[in-house]
């Protein structure tokens, strides 16, 4: 959100439109409330200011938001830092190990359940990407989401093969 204000100050509704354009179909899920709550939090942290525009009603969407100097610094730092979302692979892996060790659940069934969820997300992202109306730049984001989910599925397949083999060994 800060980065969307880096170019120039914006009205609240304008900021929402910028976010939607940047995120494409993934931005549709974002509601106005989330945006204004976040803006209020950023203001409290001293990263943005907001001013009421003369002649307009005092509503969050009609206020003009701008970065403070420390907000600008934060954006510059964010752009240069190398970040990668922390994958929850370790957690799921621990789940499988714990389930098998304590006979709490069938690891292969856990993999099946996880795969259904990943497939559901993949289907949604791929369907959005199939839409010819999607802007090519927003489409890149969808392609990234699809590629990662496919990687998750490949990994789940490896888990399934390994855990199914272990179960066969244990039962023979």
């Amino acid at each position, binding site marked *: 959100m800060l980065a969307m204000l880096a170019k120039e100050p914006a009205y609240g509704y304008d900021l929402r439109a910028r976010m939607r354009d940047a995120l494409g179909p993934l931005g549709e899920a974002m509601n106005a409330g989330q945006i204004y709550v976040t803006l209020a939090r950023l203001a409290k942290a001293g990263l943005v200011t907001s001013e009421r525009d003369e002649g307009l009603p005092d509503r969050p969407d009609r206020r003009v938001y701008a970065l403070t100097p420390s907000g600008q610094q934060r954006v510059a730092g964010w752009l240069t830092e190398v970040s990668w979302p922390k994958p929850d692979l370790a957690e799921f892996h621990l789940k499988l190990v714990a389930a098998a060790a304590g006979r709490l659940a069938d690891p292969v069934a856990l993999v*099946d359940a996880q795969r259904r969820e990943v497939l559901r997300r993949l289907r949604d992202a791929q*369907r959005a990407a199939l839409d010819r109306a999607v802007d090519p730049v927003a489409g890149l984001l969808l392609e990234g989401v699809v590629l990662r989910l496919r990687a998750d599925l490949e990994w789940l397949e490896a888990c399934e093969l390994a855990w199914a083999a272990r179960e066969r060994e244990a039962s023979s």
Partner: protein
Amino acid sequence: MTALRARGLTKRYGSDNTLVRAVDEIDLDVPTGQTLAIMGPSGCGKSTLLHLLGGLQRPTRGEVWLADRRIDTMSERALARLRRDDVGFVFQSFHLMDELTAVENVELAALLAGRSPSRARKRALYLLDRVGLADRATHLPSALSGGQRQRVAIARALSNEPLVVFADEPTGNLDSAATLEVLRLFDDLRLHGQTLVVVTHDARIAAVADRVIAMRDGAFADDNRLVGTVYDGRR
């Protein structure tokens, strides 16, 4: 109506120590108009299953019905006719005739089925237009991209208005953009009520499927839990 039905479908290779249950006691009902994706790792038996359902191979045991005809006990001749007239196949490696143009590849199936040359040509041009390749009709396969070749192969599969189209890893040789073209085309077929059975490693097919079955060691591992939850509803 049920387009495709299998009961106790089993295919075994080898014997005793080397016995492989490629397909193991599978029951399946595919309603007319459904797009079914069967997914699973290499060697899980999904291609063998497709061959059994499409009459390319005979089962060791079990029954296969296409519409209201039992096909596993058909004579070779009747089976060849069924493959020619009533089902369409799409393969990973396209299987187009290199020396024939796109439109000639598409019309060949109709000519073999006994349609007049002019009707066959008309139908082939219509299908090429439908897959977005009207302007490539006179190109040889070598002059087409991978995605375009696969679309020609899909047009060919539709040539005789098949009851069911079977596709074996249709996006396996395609890059991301070409895969998108094929997925759009499958989505279009689905919307037009074409019954389609796809076996694939490519989970993106799930985007255009009504139902996804996960296969493991020759059997369905994860079907019931998908049916009726997220995958089985027509949009």
